[in-house]
């Protein structure tokens, strides 16, 4: 009566024994992802990359004052590698990757500005990576802004200092005006009114000048400042942010790799011929395989999560039951992908190649490397056909935002998983019947 259950258990036991018999593999599977996350944490920079910069000035003595401003501004982003008089030499060092940036200072910057023209800083870099190019352009923009601001602050401070004598003169002028107003005859109403207005104007200018002198140059030049606030109560490091994505990606890859080798090996060994003659059905064989791999991978996922949360201190803001549900559904769907590969592959090598292609696609399109919102249509279809995309989204929401499982995402991945199970079943049945 329960023979089908016994037949399912055949694969359950067999697959588990085969895996457990490879302790080194299990150790690699558990410690591998943990080590990757750990090393990623060590490798992640605490701050943005500062650029090694050579300044070029044809006559450094002539621009000695300005040079100090250029070399000492924005030390967070610029590392001063010295002043070079030969532009070509500086560019050759840049080409040889000895420096990251060359800033050419114009010959007479102050004179140019006084002529009501903008003094241009030539900034050279040697990057081909578009992301790094963008970064350097941003740093260059920030640098020029900082330099401009510092010049403005200096000019403002100078103006404030100069206004001191102006204010003394104004006070004298106001006193004189008051005396003048008192000497005007009472019948000369017009003149008295004009004197009073002059006194008032001078007093207003004095007050404005007082305000001007009371403000710091920083406030004058940068009247607004900006502060950003996150709805999330926790601020994450790069490692913490990437941990859920690494877990989702690794779980998908493990499932696919295990499953993709499973049936293809049996096809090659010839045991499929025995299955076709024996009373076992494709459904029973597939169920046995699903259950065994799922059990094993749940344990594996538990170990990887435990190491991530308790050893690497990756935050877990959500509910554990949501996390468990998300992991199980990602594993189930990934197994479906793996068995599908196994059923359409002729050799182990072919199956492994397919699984590596999927891993590559997942790195680029699952939201692991690039935010999903940046991926253009219709490539997003590819993104949303990868279990890792759903896994990353669910684990990030649960672990980092403390949200409950996103229902639509969960239903989407579950639907793909069920569809894959049915396709795999039909394919296996075809192989066992034909």
């Amino acid at each position, binding site marked *: 009566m329960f*023979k*089908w259950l*016994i*037949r399912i*258990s*055949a*694969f359950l*036991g*067999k697959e588990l*024994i*085969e895996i457990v*018999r*490879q302790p080194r593999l299990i150790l690699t599977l558990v410690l591998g992802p943990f080590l990757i996350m750990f090393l990623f944490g060590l490798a992640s920079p605490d701050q943005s990359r500062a650029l090694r910069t050579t300044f070029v000035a044809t006559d450094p003595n002539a621009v000695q004052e300005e040079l100090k401003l250029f070399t000492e501004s924005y030390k967070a982003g610029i590392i001063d590698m010295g002043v070079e008089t030969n532009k070509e030499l500086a560019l050759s060092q840049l080409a040889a990757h000895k420096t990251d940036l060359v800033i050419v200072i114009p010959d007479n910057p102050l004179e140019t500005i006084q002529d009501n023209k903008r003094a241009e800083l030539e900034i050279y870099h040697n990057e081909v990576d578009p992301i790094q190019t963008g970064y350097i352009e941003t740093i260059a923009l920030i640098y020029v802004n900082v330099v401009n601001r510092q010049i403005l602050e200096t000019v403002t401070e100078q103006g404030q200092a100069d206004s001191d004598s102006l204010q003394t003169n104004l006070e004298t002028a106001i006193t004189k005006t008051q005396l003048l107003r008192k000497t005007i005859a009472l019948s000369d109403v017009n003149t008295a009114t004009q004197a009073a207005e002059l006194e008032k104007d001078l007093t207003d200018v004095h007050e404005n000048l007082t305000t001007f002198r009371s403000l710091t140059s920083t406030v004058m030049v940068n009247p607004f400042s900006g502060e950003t606030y996150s709805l999330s109560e926790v601020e994450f490091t790069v490692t913490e942010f990437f941990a859920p994505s690494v877990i989702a990606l690794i779980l998908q890859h493990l499932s696919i790799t295990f499953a993709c080798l499973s049936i293809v090996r049996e096809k090659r*060994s*010839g*045991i499929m*011929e*025995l*299955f*076709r*003659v*024996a*009373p*076992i*059905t494709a459904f029973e064989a597939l169920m046995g395989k699903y259950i065994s791999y799922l059990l094993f991978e749940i344990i594996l996922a538990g170990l990887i999560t435990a190491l991530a949360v308790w050893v690497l201190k990756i935050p877990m803001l959500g509910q554990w039951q949501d996390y468990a549900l998300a992991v199980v559904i990602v594993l189930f769907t990934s197994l479906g992908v793996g068995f599908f590969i196994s059923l359409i592959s002729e050799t182990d090598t072919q199956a492994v190649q397919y699984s590596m292609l999927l891993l590559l696609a997942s790195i680029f399109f699952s939201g692991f490397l690039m935010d999903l919102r940046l991926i253009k249509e219709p490539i997003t279809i590819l993104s949303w056909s990868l279990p890792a995309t759903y896994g990353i989204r669910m684990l990030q929401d649960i672990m980092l935002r403390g949200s409950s499982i996103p229902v639509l995402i969960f239903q989407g991945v579950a639907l793909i998983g069920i569809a894959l199970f049915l396709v795999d079943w039909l394919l296996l049945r075809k192989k066992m019947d034909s």
Partner: protein
Amino acid sequence: MKNSHATENVIETQELTKMFGKDIAVQTLNMQIQPGTIFGFIGPSGCGKTTTVRLLTGFYRPTSGTLSVLGKNPSNFSNSDREKIGYLIQQFVLYPELTVWENLNFAASFYGVNPFRAGRLNKLLDFVELKEDKNKLARDLSGGMKRRLSLAATMVHNPELLFLDEPTAGIDPILRRKFWDYFKELQVEGRTLFVTTQYVGEAAYCDLVGVMYEGRLLMIETPDGLHRRAYGGDVLAIRTTEGMNSEQRHHLESLPFVHGKVKVIDENENDVIVDEANTAIPSLMEWCLAKNLTVEAIEKKSVPFDDVFVKIIEKEAAHV
């Protein structure tokens, strides 16, 4: 063992043909096999033995003709029908990373054998003499041990009909002999065995032998019948003290129950082909007495099956 097909043929085919594209693998095969028989299916490599087994197990569907195994068309086998069949594939297909015991346990599970089966598995391992090696990984077994493990896995669900595809291929003669001892034991238990082999000498262990050549079943015979079909009768060796002269040989050839020429082995030994050894031996004794020849021995000669097979094939080729 209980046999539910005691009276009807366990295997029956009529004009069974299997083609792969335009290539004929099996051509108009007709055979009937009774329960409890060891049926040897003999022929050179590529002659269609495995294809026939695959047709009989339901692995292939026939191109034309009809077949019945255990009273049913294998294409329509239910799970319970399949449980009555054991199939030993030519190559080792079990799992190298599992032990002997685990492999056997796996086979038992996928045939749906009751989980309380340790006793049966031990008995089987005892039968194929692998009990001492039950914790060895399959990958560490020798070729012969792997074949024995495969045989045990084939019998794990107590099938009444066994298809054994070249079970003795690539193993040493001593182990081959042992395998045939196993098969005899299985037969005694009431099972039917359909055994394919390239080793023509193994025909001697079978009740019936089917000779396959280039996709055609040339004949089904008993091992003795094969000899007679090859040589036109039984071969008798006549050993006499005095040498037989040519006149006596001519006279011997003219006897009605003697076929063809007398073959001179040496001065004192001559071979003759007769209709039936049992009836011919007394007549030959009398003939020797009449010709004043002292008989040392007249006995049925055991011609190697290799020679028998070659002779049959030569005859067939000549016929074609």
